[in-house]
């Protein structure tokens, strides 16, 4: 059976935070969302992006590797679980090691929490709450073949952070022909573009 996983397509995201609200309903971390929706820059656009745990598989879960107490377990299917509460000592290694900015941290409770791909729902054959609720398909759950059959765009599970490439279980949806999400190169492009055009200097775009 093909592997079921999440596909993240921020271009469709409308910033409604359904995923966040839905995530909070999970019985295993009531009242707290493990999904984060961020504005990219509200001062420029309403564009938003949902972030779920990408469940890195190469290198395997940096968060788990840097955990001093081995509190973060990885299931045989490659799903990176949230910290085992009896072990987590609240050192924050995982929070800062994670290249995607996923783990949440409660200092007083000495506990890190993160998305575990709705282990409780997926074992019952249900979709993770976030993908279930998402009205736009910005978070989509299923297998690769199914995705390609239904949707446009090119699912990519490689992200390059400067010198480090990370392969993940969860996919980003990119335009066709893009081999990976090269963060630094794209950020440089964005900065170069911005340097030339401050909006204040632009002509009014409406008449």
């Amino acid at each position, binding site marked *: 059976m093909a592997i079921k996983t999440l596909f993240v397509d921020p271009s469709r995201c409308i910033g409604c935070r*359904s995923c966040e609200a839905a995530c909070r309903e999970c019985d295993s971390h009531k009242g707290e969302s493990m999904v984060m929706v961020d504005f990219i820059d509200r001062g420029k656009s*309403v564009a938003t992006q949902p972030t779920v745990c990408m469940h890195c598989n190469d290198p395997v879960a940096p968060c788990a590797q840097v955990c001093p107490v081995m509190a973060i377990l990885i299931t045989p299917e490659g799903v990176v679980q949230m910290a085992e509460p009896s072990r987590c000592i609240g050192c924050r290694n995982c929070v800062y090691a994670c290249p995607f900015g996923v783990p949440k941290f409660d200092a007083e409770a000495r506990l890190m929490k993160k998305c575990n791909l709705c282990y409780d729902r997926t074992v019952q054959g249900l979709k993770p709450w976030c993908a279930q609720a998402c009205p*736009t398909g910005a978070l989509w759950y299923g297998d690769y073949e199914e995705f390609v059959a239904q949707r446009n765009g090119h699912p990519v599970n490689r992200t390059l952070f400067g010198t480090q490439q990370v392969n993940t279980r969860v996919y980003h949806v990119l335009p066709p022909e893009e081999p990976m999400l090269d963060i630094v190169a794209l950020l440089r492009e964005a900065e170069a573009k911005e340097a030339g055009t401050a909006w204040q200097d632009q002509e009014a775009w409406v008449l």
Partner: protein
Amino acid sequence: MSVNKDIFEINRDFNYDFESTGRTRQQWDAKDAVAERLVPTHCAFCGVQCGMNLKVANGQVIGVEPRDYVHNRGNLCPKGIVAYQQVNHPDRLLYPMLRRGGKGGKLERCTWEEALGYITSRWKDIQSKYGKDAVAVYSGSSMTNEKCYLAGKFARVGLQTRHIDYNGRLCMSSAAGAYTKAFGMDRAPIPMPDIPLADCIMVLGANVTECFPIVTRWVWQGRDRGSKLIVLDPRETPTARTADVWLPVKPGTDVAVLNAMLRVIIHEGLVDEAYIAARTNNWEQVKTMVEPFTLERAQELSGVPAARIKAAALIYGRSATSLIMHARGIEHHSHGVNNVLAGINLALARGQMGKPGGGIMMLTGQGNGQGGREHGQKASQLPGYRHIDMPSERQEIAEVWGVPVDELPWEGAAATEMPNLMAKGEIKSCLILCSNLMVSLPDNALVKKALTALDPLIVIDFFMSETAELADLVLPGSVWCEDEGTTTNLEGRVIKINAAAEPPGEARRDWEILCDLARGMGRGQYFPFQSAREIWDELRRASRGGVADYYGITWEKIDRQQGVFWPCPSLDHPGTPRPFTEKFYHPDGKARFTPIDFIPPAEEPSPDFPFRLTSGRVIYHYLSGNQTRRLGFLNAHAPDPWVEIHPQAAARLNIKDQEIVRVRSPRGSMELKALVVPTIRPDTIFIPFHYGHAGAVNQLTNPAVDPTVKIPEYKVCAATVEKIDQPLPVSGGAPKINFTPQDSPKMFPYAVGETKGPQEKEGKQH
């Protein structure tokens, strides 16, 4: 648009969620229990009415689970997900409260007996002194069809007053009026799952993504197929951001753009002549009317670049199937009916109405916005979309109700006219249910004056709303999942709401309260209802033969078919998902074009008030926010209103992002946070409308209303923005006034029976 949590959250790595939930940890812990059963029902918020399952344990609603319903397929927006948290909310009203010391006194707990006795004795007193019409009912659409129907019957039979109207007046009455005028029936042409069939989706004044997130599902699905998206909106909303063409229109000038588009379509030879000839009337007048709307003129009037208008017209005109969706953005205007009619003209000229996936579709905002406007809680209307001034229709309903037809009151004042009558003292007392006037009506200084003049003001609500705070008597009602009944969603699909819990404390179901009040008024024989189902059965009979015919819709059929579309005239009828495929509902079976000229909004900017102020919804809140502002997750993301202003305008005024500024209009001023964003026109400012007291944008809005349906002009008035410590000089200049409430024809009182006769019926039936 919601605010960026990054702006407001300081401890970003910290788990802020618990702090912002509004529920204590114990309340969340109550959710630990395993659900005993799932109650299938629908969401309390917005006209989409998504299917959901409520988790119930020990008689308490403890959570929500997705429900694979035909129009939302298990999707939910954040409001839907947290809706269940209203049920055990600590702010719930649990017992009646009476202002024993009179005005100025405090609301004190009282018994139901005392409360009902107080109301009936005061009402009898008032009605005997000042006449039956001195007591009014102001109802709402966010409740079941059964309750809406009962509210209308209660006013006309229980109180025998002509003054009953509802908050749908403020919502989409202009669209309802326009649809009735053009098609003879006020209903959506297609169910939502048909949306992806459209090759072009044009969204007029609707922030679909924020206000109807689940409709986005179908729009996005259409785009996966390759449909084009055109968006007409002064703001670059998440809907507009990725649109193929965004038409950044100046608020109040939509007709200029729509007429210019129609002109392009005519000149390019893209009109569907055969369809027009076979299925419509009045085309030639429209053709003549739009001829002067050249692209240049439209650009000048609307501020939308001519090239964009042309591009939009060509995409729309060349698409084989095209769907227009519209909402409050074009409806909340002093010419709201015209705006919608201009859209209808486009759809008819392209021969779209009646095509699968094509046509024009209104996105009704309120939970039961569609059903609530069909069954006689409107000033001019009787159940089944009948008109109260039509003798034959009066007769039919009088028979169902078993009252002499002469006892039935005539048309009363519209919701927007009621405050004037209250302030003048013509209405002495009012029962308000399912409405929060202090937030929702324009120019709320006048509304406050009107409400405080009432003695007594009686409010039924389940939270202490800004309006209930002014009441002399507050009665605790039930939230949606404490009662059963039906609602009709924006598709015209009648669906079933199921009860998952009992009302808490001494709170009661609203229909029980109304029945008790009717008994107190000595009219109990007309209100023998023991269950919502009995009301439903009477509603079905009352609507039989009307335009909105519910006769064949039984609760069992709703469960069996996943909803039934009206009209459904007989028990073996499956319902009508696509009512316009064969015919329209005027006597000749044809649709009507209406020539629409451009009329500017009632108030326009002047040097002292240089901006156009527009108001609207945000994703996290619903209507007046009385419910959603109490739900932690939602409120945490948008706890206070803000004003969106373009960086160029902000730079001119030296206003920084997040600075507290003062916004002034000729009616008042308010202070709020500035959100400096380039996603709005530089000549326009936006304030969300869900907030009360000092946060209410309706301190500023213009009470001018549409001349036919009396919908207020929430979407445009003149305003100015200034720094708190540097007020701008006031030269005493007024905004440019094009139109005032006094100028408009036919404000109440109407001559009794003045609209008798079928020709007038359609004009009045809105």
